[in-house]
């Protein structure tokens, strides 16, 4: 987030944002106090954690899922909803 900010001459007019999805440059993973750890052996790939994640931070892989820690805010919904309880919330350490 240390890019130089553009001035009135180079900014698109009207405050328009021309790059869809530019929010991906903002890593909300820094917010986390707890991080989800997925036991991928136990994961049944039901994808409930994927659909219930507010931040699209569950990555769909072939046989199981993983967490995108760049954006995961550590809300814990995935752990709470997992039908096989293979996700544990562990205190984040930095």
């Amino acid at each position, binding site marked *: 987030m240390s890019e130089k900010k553009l001035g009135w001459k180079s900014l698109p007019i009207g405050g328009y944002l021309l790059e869809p999805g530019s*929010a991906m440059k903002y890593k909300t993973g820094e917010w986390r106090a707890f991080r989800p750890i997925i036991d991928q052996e136990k994961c049944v790939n039901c994808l409930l954690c994927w659909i219930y994640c507010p931040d*699209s931070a569950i990555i769909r892989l072939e046989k199981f899922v993983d967490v995108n820690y760049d954006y995961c805010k550590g809300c814990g919904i995935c752990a709470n909803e997992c039908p096989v309880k293979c996700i544990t919330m562990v205190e984040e350490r930095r």
Partner: protein
Amino acid sequence: MVRLKDLPTEELFTSGHRLCAGCGAGIIMRMTMKALRGPTIVVSATGCVEVASTIYPYTSWKVSWVHVAFENAAAVASGIEAAYKAMRRRGAWDKHVDIIAIVGDGGTFDIGIQALSGALERGHDFLYICYDNEAYMNTGIQRSSATPHGAATTTSPAGRKIPGKPEFKKDLIGICAAHGIKYAATASPAYWNDYITKVRKGLEVDGPAVIHVFSPCPLGMRHDSSKSIEIARLAVQTRYWPVYEVENGKYKLNIKVPRPKPLIEFLKMQGRFRHLFQPEFRHEIDALQKWVDENWRRILSLCGEKV
């Protein structure tokens, strides 16, 4: 009906937005984007989703997105719909555009009800989704007419004299259905299949469609961020949030709740109802339970189900 693994993996509502951890609205936005069928424009009103997803220069939206003001999403959507209609007629535009207005309960129930009513009456072809977190959450948890009876908000605080909001929640879908629109429905993000199916149905309807979806708010409803979906499920399972649809004026119950959980299960998970558990306000819980029961009976009877 669709399977999770068949849903598109592309995220048109990307990570990087600033919604709170565990925000129900974030889940709803993602689910909504999974139901699109073609070129889509989202019109947002001022509120949590709008503010958190478009802080210049960051935008979470990979579809065209417009925000004008707080109370006029339906009016802006009307103008966009009319424009494409006119441009198509003179051969300057050839695609069908799905227009979705995404508005909170604030911009729908209160300040935005006029614009919504006008747009429904005029019959514009658009889908209106009200994500209801039951208060003006973005500005700091002030009450709206969608706030339930007894809930504590900053403008209806749990005081010594008046315990939370005295008024009861407005029947939004009833109001919308009264406009004679083809499709109106309630939903809960806990029932993702029902919700996503309804979004697609709403898009496919020729004319206005309204979906009223419950949006848990960890900060405003004062619950643990991990419990958002659980609370959204409980809302339905306690009959607090009946899930039904109204198609061409005909009511249909989508999620039957033959053995409801007591409302208290739902209330005790949320700090905004905590004061009702004090002995002097306990009767308010009964009042709420009574309202839930009466509302459920009313919906059931409209749906032609046995009460």
